[in-house]
């Protein structure tokens, strides 16, 4: 009888411990840990921690042109154009007829934009990214657009290439990921917003 009683109170102890433990963990892992991390990040790496924003001084006013890491839509021929974002990502099977139709439409779009360009289009210019805001394209996809940008802007092709090269990153540590060009940064420089 006595034993049963202590057993029962022990079981109640377990539920109480569970409640308190859940509360302690909420405070420690849910408030202390992320808030301390926020503090350290804000003190030591404020630019990265706040979204790598591009803030430019224009006529004495500060204008935020978005984030270096978030792609923007470009459609006009004088700009370097990034990944398609017509309702992206499609989430269609890679081999489905629906996906093929989307790609065909994009191929046509590129050909209409620059009818003289008969080179093969790099794949990422006719497929959408996972995030829908991919800030990058490959160097090949930038090269594909060099002659058009130079023509539209009345610049030399090598000048355009120089701007692109400035905003091109190689593979991290030489082997991680892919070489990539930051589309927004190239366009900001082409427009003279940054130098």
């Amino acid at each position, binding site marked *: 009888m006595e034993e049963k009683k202590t057993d029962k109170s022990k079981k109640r*102890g*377990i539920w109480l*411990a569970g*409640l*308190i*433990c*859940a509360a*302690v*963990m*909420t405070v420690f*892992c*849910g408030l202390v*840990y*992320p*808030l301390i*991390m*926020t503090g*350290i*990040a804000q003190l030591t790496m404020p630019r*990265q*921690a706040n*979204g790598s*924003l591009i803030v430019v001084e224009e006529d004495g006013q500060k204008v935020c042109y*978005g*984030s270096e*890491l978030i792609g*923007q839509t*470009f459609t006009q021929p004088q700009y370097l154009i990034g990944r398609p974002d017509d309702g992206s*990502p*499609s*989430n*269609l*099977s*890679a*081999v*489905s007829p*629906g*996906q*093929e139709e989307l790609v065909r439409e994009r*191929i046509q779009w590129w050909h209409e934009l620059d009818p003289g360009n008969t080179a*093969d289009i790099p794949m*990422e210019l*006719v*497929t*959408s*990214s*996972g*995030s829908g*805001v*991919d800030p*990058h394209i490959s160097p090949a996809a930038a090269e594909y657009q060099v002659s058009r940008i130079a023509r539209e802007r009345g610049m030399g092709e090598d000048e355009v290439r120089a701007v692109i090269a400035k905003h091109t990153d190689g593979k*991290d*540590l030489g*082997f*991680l*990921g*892919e070489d*990539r060009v930051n589309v927004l940064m190239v366009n*900001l420089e082409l427009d003279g*917003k940054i130098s």
Partner: protein
Amino acid sequence: MSSGVIQDIVYVVALIGIGIPLGLYIYKVMTGKLTWKPIAALERFTYRVMHINPEEEQTAGKYALSAIAFSVFGFAILFLLHLLQGYLPLNPEGLPGVSADLAYNTTASFVSNTNWQAYSGETTLSYLTQMAGLTVQNVVSPAVGTAVLFALIRGFQRRESNTIGNFWVDLVKATYYVMIPLSIIVTLILVSQGVIQNLGAYVHATTLETGAEQVIPMGPAASQIAIKQLGTNGGGFFGVNSAFPLENPTPLSNFVECLSLLLIPAALCFSFGRAVKDSKQGRAIFIVMLVIFLMALIGMTMSENVAAPQYDGVAVSGSMEGKEARLGVDTSALWATATTSASNGSVNAMHDSFTPLAGGIQMFLMMLGEVVFGGVGCGLYGMLAFAILTVFIAGLMVGRTPEYLGKKIQAFDMKMVCLVILTPPLCLLLGTALSTFVPTITDDFTNTGAHAYSELLYAYTSGAGNNGSAFAGFNANTVYSNLGIGTVMLLVRFIPMAAVIFLGGNLAKKKRIPASGGTLSTSNAMFIIFLLLIVFVVGALTFLPALALGPIAEFFKTLPTLG
């Protein structure tokens, strides 16, 4: 050698190179051999406010009850945070409370270490819900998995004992010594790469070409993403998970996130070997996992490169739909393999748009029971259940009582093993089959035909594997799917978990049989191959019919002669 292959090799080398010392560290922490004064003080404080005695040993029943009690209150807190976030602080966007069915689904998913995303973080959840809700479960659900694993390990270590340790001590140690310190390191690396960590309001910027307004989401992301990866959780801070540049900005951040994803599950193999005083046992289990992982990685990378659709007028390339340019085909295939083996479920590319066989491999990895590294703790205890099944079958073949690590495997043990191995497939297949009878389910697909069925199969596979990744074309945020998949996630987490605790309790009661000449070695090449076969045969027998209707049918349709 292409850089993709080099990246894969460096990945595996890093996994083993960091996994072994980390495994020894976890072993020392969990067996109380390693303490550090500041953390020990925090530990003592925690036990004091909980009114528990850390020296007290628990029986399997008490241990299981403690794990359940903790998860019930964790569930309650997270569920309430979802419903009430509109009235609570740290909500600069003024987001309202979440609907009850979505709150149930998300809560079930985080408490069960699944982290299925029917929600989209940046449009649904306040910073408080993300931090005090999701981040907390991200930390403690792998800690619970680690605790239960050590309860099972004590079953092998102890002889004629009624107890298997103290759940609270295991939980607190795993959290304070393993999860949080590793998260701090990974958080800082991620922020340095550009992952955000702030409490500010969303930024309203101006786009360059049109001058339109662009809203950039903000929040305390890095601290959550670190533990989302380390704890095999996978629920993103943002809707598109680690494809989103602010969640995974560079190939280096990608490598760190991808490595974090398998690190603890791999390390635990070595902790296990050390704990049963025979490192070869841990190595054997690790090799089995690694072999399946490598086969999947090669298959997935090949399918994405070779079987990708090509178009006239487009340069020849691997499949890029749904993939980020900075990551590319090989890096995305590596992540997809790791995330579906590890029951993590985070994505850096859209799985729905992978080539059919690659999608099939993703599903098959999850269907194997998430034992290829698997979730933190639960992956290894799942694989140990398979190891016990293997010695049982081997024992039947030669007519000997099966033994594993010096313990006789008897009827009760096999019943528990069956619960561990059979609960997920049962929930998966029944869930998928029942859902095909729901008339409105076709409204939730993006694709048609075999691939639409794959979307549904993937959803239940992901839920039943406590994985959490998705074919994102499937609209999972409906009342039916929220309740259905949410319930599957809870069942497959807690039924096997309880079975493992009672298995540990029963093993601890047994005597230890000294190894003799007739004992089946459980660490040599023969056993490794046998275990591999058992894992494959159980997985294949259970799931090939279901896979044949989805990815396999779709693959054959792409062959020119049949198309």
